């Protein structure tokens, strides 16, 4: 037609349009949707199966944990019962072991090193307290108050606790006779 565009006047209420592009897009979208649905289904089944497996394993583990807890509780109960039943004997045994194993040498060495040269001990009364400590009562003769204080300081700096001066008197030569109590605790 005469180098002129074709006349395409259209009075229709719903003009015919080329919907191929939209249809093509729709087909592509439907295809993608189908693929996604397939993948979703695949992953749902796959991970659903794994989930069931994991839940089953978790259940087994939980059952085992509960079983272990129950066993632990049982064991603890038994241990407590045994511990209660044997407590007296154990304490006695420990006390005996402690007494047997107590190093008198070490105690006397400590006392010796704490005692100033001019002072001397006239009596020593030990008594075991509990399983691992020893109460001591000593009578010390010191030439002066300074020697007594030096002794107390030395005892303080060693393994001696609760040092208390109980009694004090002077003899005919003017020496101080002092009664001291203290506690000696030493690990076995």
């Amino acid at each position, binding site marked *: 037609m005469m*180098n002129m565009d*074709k006349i*395409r*006047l*259209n009075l*229709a209420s719903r003009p*015919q349009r080329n919907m191929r592009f939209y249809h093509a897009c729709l087909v592509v979208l439907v295809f993608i949707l189908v693929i996604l649905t397939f993948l979703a289904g695949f992953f749902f089944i796959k991970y659903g199966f794994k989930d069931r497996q994991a839940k089953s394993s978790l259940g087994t583990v939980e059952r085992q944990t509960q079983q272990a807890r129950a066993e632990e509780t049982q064991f603890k109960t038994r241990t407590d019962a045994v511990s209660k039943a044997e407590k007296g004997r154990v304490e006695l045994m420990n006390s005996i072991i402690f007494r047997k194993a107590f190093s008198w040498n070490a105690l006397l060495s400590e006392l010796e090193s704490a005692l100033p040269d001019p002072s001397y001990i006239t009596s020593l009364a030990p008594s075991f307290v509990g399983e691992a400590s020893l109460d001591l009562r000593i009578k010390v003769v010191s030439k002066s108050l300074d020697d007594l204080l030096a002794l107390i300081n030395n005892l303080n700096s060693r393994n001696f606790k609760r040092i208390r001066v109980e009694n004090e008197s002077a003899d005919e030569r003017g020496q101080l006779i002092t009664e001291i109590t203290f506690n000696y605790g030493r690990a076995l």
Partner: protein
Amino acid sequence: MKLLPELKRLQDRFLEVPLPDAVFQVTASHLSGLRIAPRERRAANHFISRLRPGVVSPSFGRTNIPDVSLLESKVREGMAKIGLGQGTVAVLLPELCVRVFILNLDSASLSQKEKEKIIRWRIGKQMPAVPEDARFVFQEFPAGSSKRIVVAVSRGAVLQEYEGLFSRCQLAAGNLSLPSLSLINLLPEAGEDTLVVNVEEDSLSFVAIIDSKLALYRQKSFAFDQAPGKPLVQRLAGFLKEVENTMHFLEDKEKKRIRSLWFRSGLPDAGVDIASELRRLLALTVRETGELVTQGSGNGESGLLSPLFGQLA
């Protein structure tokens, strides 16, 4: 470089409006239809059905189809003949139910809304009583620095009559156009200045193309004298007068003399005779639009069916 034609094909496939399944033409005197084979872009089958007077009464303002049931049955008969069950169709409406205007628009940089506004205003100047339900469609053609705009106006109620008719026959009328405009699409490329004349039983339409641009559209209610026994020369007198008037108007307006005329007759009985008489009486090269139909419809029906073939072009 085979890529470009392939791209063009792809572009056409996704952007060009696809061909309908069939083209129908409704006039006061007949109903015709052409089945289209869309892949081959060719006519597959056709029918022409004569209508008795009063079945279709083409008019711009009034009801067009007084006898809807009869026309519907004719459409169904035609569908059966061309083997069409349902689908999309293009319908060529009677010339008289649509008004066509050709306007020049100098402002090239207008938005679509502005163009519509201007077109409505300019049509309102030429057509004082524009109906409220008037539907406007327009197409732009380049004309130098300005634009030439072809506008078609019709009443929504009238268009719905035709759309409803085809819809009841399971056909979606996706394209409503005019026979005379459809004929333009058939004209050969690089043709000379020409006048296309379309004669129907109740109307005359003229479309002039000058310098490869639409220059004139004229439509006239015209009762062709078909009195039996009266010599054709006498019967053609009124028609010839209208052709001459149009030629003179064009000569005055465009300062050009048209020497070629394409003629199409919608009168099933007298088309060939009129063309030969026109050749004899007018100092013009007169050709029938049927010659432009390359696909044979046979037995002299190509002229009558030529507007339908225009939809294939």
